[in-house]
Every structure is written in C-alpha cells, then in structure tokens.
C-alpha cells in the first residue's frame, strides 16, 4: 500500500489526502499507533499545528516519521533521547495488538 499521510489537522480538512481509498482509517493496521504517536507529540510541543506524522509501510513494518516545529525538536527528543525512546516504547505498545512492528523517526 502507499503512504498514509496524516498531517496535523489534515484529516478533517483534506480527507482525500488523509487516507487513500479506505473509508475507515481505524481499519488500517497501526491506526491506533499513529493516533497515539500524534497524541504524544502534540502533548509535548508548543506548536501543535506544526506536528506532522507520516506513515510508510515497508517489509519490516510501519515506519513513522515525525516532524515538529523549529523550536520543539528538543522537547520530543529529550535529554539523551530519553523522551524519544519513551515515545517509541509507547507507540510500539499501541501497535502490538495489530501485530505490526513500528519504527519511529524524528526528522527535520
């Protein structure tokens, strides 16, 4: 399947972009994990609107890429990557019932 793009707030204002042809986003494997990831990152940053989560699927599972506003990267990474790792742990837990492996990258 192709990339699922779930930008901050984009689900409501541009449905065509949000999910390809599936009419129910919750049926996608890893939908819960994506929700959880987006929830966590938005709770941590100052600029919620700048949060973007991209989900791709490859052979190893789901690859989630997180982008945040300019000043917020430190918040989601944390000292020595502690917060980033905590986010990964929780997101993987959210994906566990779907039986999907998840990789979370923080990019800018």
């Amino acid at each position: 399947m192709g990339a699922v793009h779930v930008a901050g707030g984009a689900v409501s204002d541009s449905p065509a972009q949000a999910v390809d042809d599936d009419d129910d986003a919750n049926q996608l494997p890893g939908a819960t994990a994506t929700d959880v990831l987006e929830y966590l990152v938005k709770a941590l940053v100052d600029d919620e609107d700048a949060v973007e989560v991209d989900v791709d699927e490859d052979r190893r599972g789901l690859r989630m890429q997180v982008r945040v506003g300019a000043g917020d990267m430190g918040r989601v990474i944390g000292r020595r990557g502690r917060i980033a790792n905590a986010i990964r742990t929780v997101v993987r837990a959210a994906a566990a019932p779907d039986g999907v492996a998840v990789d979370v990258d923080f990019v800018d």
Partner: protein
Amino acid sequence: MEWVETTGRTVEEAKDAALDRLGVDERDAEFDVLEEARSGLFGRVRQEARVRARVRPDHPRPRVDRRERRRQGGESTPASAGNRPRAASSGRPGGGSGADSADAVDVAPRDDADDMLPAPSSEEQAEEARAFLDGLAAAFGLQGVSEVEIVDGDQIEARLVGDGLGLLIGPKGQTLAAVQDLTRAVVQRGPRRGGRMRVDVGGYQQRRREALVRFARQTAEQVKDSGVAVSMEPMPAYDRKVVHDTINDLAGVQSRSEGEEPRRQVLIMPDVPAD
C-alpha cells in the same frame, strides 16, 4: 520540606546516602555540606563527611503551561487557530538540514518573556497529568480513568485505573515507565524540572511496591537469623527508599546503599551493637 542528615567517608558518599533517604534524583535535591571528611593516619577516616539534604522545594520554575501561552496568544481565538506562524513547517527545506537539527536537541533554554511567569501549582500540574493520561487511554482505545493525588505537599501521584490496561504496563513495567517519563515531560515542560511525580497504571506500581516491602522484610528476617548481610538487586532510587523505609521500621537490622547508578543496590545488614 524535611531535611535529612547523612554521613559518609566522602562528601559524595554522604550525598548518595541522602539521595537514597529522599528517594529522588540528584537534580531534584539540594545539599549543604556540614562537615568535610578528614582522614587520619594510614588513610583511616578520622571524621566522616556530614551533609544535609532535602528535596528541592517547589521553586518558581521558568516554564509556563500551554494554557498560559494560549491566553497570551489571544484570548478569543481557540487553541489551534492560525495565530501561530506555520512558517516552520512550510518553509522547511525538504530533507535533513544537518546543522540545525543537531543543535535543536541540545538547545539552551529559551529565555522568553513568559519564562518569568510563576510556576503552575501542584494542583494545576496534577490536573494536566490527569488530562494527559485520560487522553492517552482514549488514543489507545482503552477504557481507563485517571485520578490524581498530591502527597507530602508537592508529590503528584497519578493513577490510571480500569480493566485491560496491560498494554500500557508492558513487560516488566517498561511501557509504564515510558508513560511516566512522558507524563513528566508533558507536565514539566521547560528547562527546569521540579516536583516529583509518580504514575501508576492498573495498580501495577502499588502491587510492585507491596511485593518489594514483603521481600525486604523476608530478607531482613534472613539477615537477622544468619547474622550475614545480604545485598539486594540494583534498583532505582525510589525503590531503594521503599527498602530503607521498611528496614528502618525493623529492629536488629539496618540498611545502606552501595555502588554507582544505575547498579546501586541496597545492603541489608545486622545491627552492630553500639560501642
């Protein structure tokens, strides 16, 4: 907040002992060195170092919560209305622009004007923790309700209760530990992390603590019977405090911590008759 007084062969040792008693990380404590250690002949300790320490009181932290920011941003506009520049996302170069991404991680605290606002009270922070945990359970699609409590004046205890929360606990409580880190990070955003916060999910920490107390008591019995000291497994500061508190209430045994973090462990030993 109470001061504890401890001694050690060096100031560092005395500080470590104090941190164990308080059950907090070094950055959450403040120290006074009362006496430096003095050594006598042949390196024998003539006088132990003595320090006093306490949990750093709730100082005005240079941070401000999101509600405050929004209020400043414009009272009438709801949270996410576009009064915040989106330039950050649209103007970003497509790929990784190396230099500033590396800098962003270790960026120094920004000294915004709003850093001067008073820190939110424990009650406000507790409420943020509660809202965060409720939202997290909802994002997981789990039925969980959180409750918060403030103990010892400023320690926040947040508990997510409900059935089927195992997913949020994880093997050996790893997911719960991550949830606690995240709750702290969300509630105590900003450069200075203050108060203490514990998060429990599905009563896991409580059961663990009770088991630890039972185990410490059993070990103490064993030490009393045999007269031989026993080292417990390495454990974090909070758990060591649980053990020290338990041993403190028992006659005939005493405890102290040894080793360096993260392999610091509690030693339970028989009381030495006072001379």
